[in-house]
């Protein structure tokens, strides 16, 4: 609203009262020592002046404010008007331009696919082209992997916010996993850890091979059983054993002194094909030799020594000592690294014609796991 600021010499309320009585609206009157200043509407300026003149009140018009006054004052300034019009036109044109396409929220879907779809509707930079935002949204949602899209125009940019579809969850089929955990060995339980299901054994309990250790179910209340995946680890003491019988007589093969030799010459192997070794039991020795006088070549010489079986008496106890060490070494080799060695011992039984050795190894190991 345009206003005119007046200043009058008379500083009493009388001036205001006569103005308002004649229908003038006075705004923001300020009383100073020697003057009174106030505002009236532009359309009431001449009425105000007429009233003040009528009552012989000395007045001054200090200033005029407002858009209409500004326009009146600058109507003859062509440059300003042209500039203003140009600015309005520029603003209008600029607001109808699209310079950018901003896509957000893409992780899995290829950005190029979304851009291609968007370019079907608008390809920046473009001027005075109407974009059907709803249709663009619908087309973007049709792209595989996109759950929702929001398109909005902000200034000269088209902002596309995309919500991608969530990846399909990995459905785990646990139907085959509803199995109880059973013992792999005859054992005595030392430790039990349960991550799922119901434990069926306690520490110190002796179990047989194949016995259930952890059941694949839980009790939700007294009468309801819920099947679940059994999980956990059960450790127990296991005794590994090996045995061997040693007889007082041992069968050994001794050489008779008869020898048979043959040569494997390169490119002449077919010569030896039909030859047979003339001994039923024999030992062999293979060596490489050089044959020929002038023209030397390498050949393989195989020597067969005839042997015959012979029974010899042995010291059973000495042999047993050796066998015990050997059996323990063999057992150690067969044991896994994660088996905890507890203790080991052996047992010798003297029979009528032989000696029987039994060795034992007590280990703590995993007997059931899932």
């Amino acid at each position, binding site marked *: 609203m345009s206003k005119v600021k007046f200043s009058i010499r008379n500083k009493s309320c009388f001036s*205001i009262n006569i103005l308002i009585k004649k229908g003038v609206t006075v705004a923001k009157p300020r009383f100073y020592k020697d003057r009174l200043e106030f505002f009236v509407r532009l359309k009431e300026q001449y009425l105000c002046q007429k009233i003040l003149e009528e009552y012989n009140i000395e007045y001054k018009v200090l200033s005029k404010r407002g858009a209409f006054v500004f326009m009146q004052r600058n109507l003859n300034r062509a440059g300003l008007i042209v500039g203003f019009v140009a600015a309005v036109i520029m603003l209008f044109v600029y607001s109808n331009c699209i310079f950018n396409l901003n896509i957000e929220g893409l992780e899995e879907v290829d950005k190029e696919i979304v851009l291609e779809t968007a370019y079907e509707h608008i390809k920046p930079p473009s001027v005075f082209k109407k974009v059907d935002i709803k249709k663009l949204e619908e087309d973007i949602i049709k792209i595989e992997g996109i759950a929702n899209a929001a398109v909005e125009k902000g200034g000269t940019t088209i902002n596309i916010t995309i919500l991608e579809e969530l990846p399909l969850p990995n459905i785990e089929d646990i139907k085959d996993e509803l199995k109880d955990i059973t013992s792999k060995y005859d054992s005595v339980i030392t430790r039990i850890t349960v991550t799922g299901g119901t434990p069926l054994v306690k520490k110190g309990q002796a179990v047989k091979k194949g016995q259930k250790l952890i059941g694949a179910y839980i009790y939700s209340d007294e009468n309801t059983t819920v099947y679940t995946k059994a999980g956990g680890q059960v450790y127990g003491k296991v005794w590994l054993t090996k045995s061997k019988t040693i007889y007082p007589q041992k069968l050994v093969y001794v050489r008779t002194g008869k020898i048979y030799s043959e040569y494997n010459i390169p490119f002449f192997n077919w010569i030896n094909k039909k030859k047979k070794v003339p001994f039923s039991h024999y030992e062999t020795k293979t060596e490489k030799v050089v044959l020929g006088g002038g023209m030397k070549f390498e050949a393989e010489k195989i020597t067969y020594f005839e042997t015959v079986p012979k029974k010899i008496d042995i010291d059973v106890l000495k042999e047993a000592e050796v066998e015990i060490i050997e059996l323990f070494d063999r057992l150690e080799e067969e044991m896994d690294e994660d088996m905890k060695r507890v203790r080991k011992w052996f047992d010798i039984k003297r029979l009528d014609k032989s000696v029987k050795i039994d060795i034992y190894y007590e280990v703590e190991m995993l007997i059931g796991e899932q």
Partner: protein
Amino acid sequence: MSIYNNLVFNTNMPLKDSIGGVRVMLVDFSGILVEGHKGLFRYSPNAIIIQLKNARLILEGENLDIAHINSDEIYIKGDIKLITREDK
């Protein structure tokens, strides 16, 4: 008081339905609108006296400022502390 306004009071009708006379509306003690005044009697930033038909309305406060005034209403802004009536 006019007959109509007397009827408004006696029949417990809303006060906004009253016609003529003086009507004062105070907003948060920061602004006051006085309708039906008869002119400004005295003005200072601490006190404004408004002429009514048969009385004067005295507004006391701090930084009192007349936002606008016309033949019907006067709107005053400022920290209003006291409103009193002075009969002629």
